[in-house]
């Protein structure tokens, strides 16, 4: 029964080829000797060398990482608070507005989010730069964090928290000692999601960045507008490599944890019997 039909094999092969071939081609051509990206002229790593000497790119990369680390950390704290309020907060004045504000940024076109934040920053006279990008990124990524964390909060057993409260811990202790460890995987996933969203964002950063806040996507976009360049291929290859290693190791770790949890459960069953 569980044998794949020819149709399924074909659709999977063609589908994944479509998903991956463009990136494979990009990676291959980053090792191309020729400046012309479409003509193969032999293997070379010279574009990587040139990239490492390009201060503009390195500066932009540094700004991007700084923005991503700070904004995703803020977003994780705020998003987790928001998720807790939504799932456990009960009723309060303006709850509907609150949940609306959590979900709306997820579907808001980036151009509108960017435009509206820029108009706010100009309106209150805030100088645009790294700080304004951090504020903007924190705002939209906290909503993603909150969605990830609240789905975890909904699914776990509330009586564990109640037990901690019955046994004399304060609300904060119950959260720190019981809830937080249980939702930790979702919080970490939320942080990673916020981090990637921030690394990736071009449109909102373009609106909210000042002269001092050129991030890597802004830099890449302005270079790419002029056409394909081997340096950008090299840069893309490095970024693809980092993501691939990250995602594969994350999935291996979670798989190992799942296996371990299964073993523990079996051991507990045996102990009971």
């Amino acid at each position, binding site marked *: 029964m569980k044998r*794949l*039909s020819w*149709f*399924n094999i074909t*659709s*999977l092969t063609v*589908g*994944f080829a*479509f*998903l*991956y071939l*463009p*990136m494979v*081609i*990009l990676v291959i*051509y980053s090792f191309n000797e020729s400046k*012309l*990206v*479409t*003509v193969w002229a032999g293997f070379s790593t010279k574009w990587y060398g040139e990239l490492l000497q390009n201060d503009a790119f390195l500066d932009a990369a540094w700004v991007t990482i700084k923005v991503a680390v700070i904004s995703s950390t803020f977003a994780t704290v*705020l998003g987790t*608070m*928001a998720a*807790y*309020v939504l799932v456990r907060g009960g009723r309060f004045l303006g709850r509907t507005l*609150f949940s609306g*504000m*959590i979900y709306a940024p997820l*579907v808001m*076109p980036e*151009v*509108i989010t960017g*435009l*509206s*934040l820029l*108009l*706010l920053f*100009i*309106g209150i006279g805030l100088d645009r730069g790294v700080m304004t990008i951090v504020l903007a990124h*924190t*705002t939209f990524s*906290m909503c993603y964090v909150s969605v990830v964390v609240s789905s975890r909060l909904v699914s776990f057993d509330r009586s564990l928290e109640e037990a901690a409260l019955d046994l004399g811990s304060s609300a*904060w202790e119950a959260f720190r000692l019981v809830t937080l460890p249980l939702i930790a995987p979702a919080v970490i996933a939320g942080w990673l999601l916020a981090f990637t969203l921030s690394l*990736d964002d*071009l*449109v909102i950063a373009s*609106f909210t960045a000042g002269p001092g806040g050129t991030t890597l*996507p802004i830099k*890449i*976009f302005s270079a*790419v*507008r002029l056409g*394909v360049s081997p340096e*950008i291929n090299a840069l*893309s290859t490095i*970024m693809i490599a980092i993501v*691939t290693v990250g*995602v*594969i190791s994350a*999935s291996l770790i979670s798989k190992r944890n799942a296996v371990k949890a299964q073993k523990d459960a079996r051991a507990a069953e045996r102990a009971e019997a």
Partner: protein
Amino acid sequence: MMRRFTLIAVPYVWLLVLFMVPFLIVFKISLSDAALAIPPYAPTMRDGFATLLSELDFENFVFLTQDDLYWKAYLSSLRIAVLSTFLTLLVGYPIAYGMARAPDEWRATLMMLVILPFWTSFLIRVYAWMGILSNEGLLNQFLIWLGLISDPLVILNTTIAVYIGIVYTYLPFMILPIYAALDRMDTSLNEAAEDLGCSRMQAFWLVTIPLSKNGIIAGSFLVFIPALGEFVIPSLLGGSGTLMIGKVLWEEFFNNRDWPVASAVAVVLLLILVIPIVLFQRNQQKQQEAEQ
């Protein structure tokens, strides 16, 4: 009690200040007039509240209906978003189907392979197609080598390239919800249909498709909504002939520096999006209720 208040107030105030207020500002500026000043619109809050209210009008919205550029851009964005959503469904459904029917031990890997591109930079994934679709690009080289064509096809900087870009970048959003729906499905239903005399094709149309309906709807909204306001894909892959409202808004703001018109464009775009968003939410709610 104090702690509960803080817990609610901090994210609440953050979103009010950085989401709600900015949006109200956009709305207000869309009712203002362009002016040669800093900031480039009038009236501003400094003119006092009474003058502010009396001078706001819907002039910019009237302007949007009069100038061809805007309603053509909205229509063409809608057309591109609808058609590319449909194409993404055509490409994504067989992949999701293949994944759901694959042996159990493959599933985790296949799932990871679908999610991996999502973590890779959007910009890079769009950029990858620039080298493939250009006149001297790999696709043309390949087709000429095959002898199918003698002159390169012009694909980059046309609307076709925009379709390819949208299908490519949003494909995971289509595959995942459909896969989730197909994965939950009981395959013995198909067997029952075949036992009762349906052909395989009939069983697919009459059983599988209706049962994966929720996944199809969810996936289609997840592609349609962001595609409508898309900026990166039309500006890198599309040409001057590709009109999309996200790009128009960007140019209105950065190149023409007409803030009131840019704001009006944003307000209308949101009004158009409200309908699919509400429908999407209703679909999600129905699904949740069905699961409970």
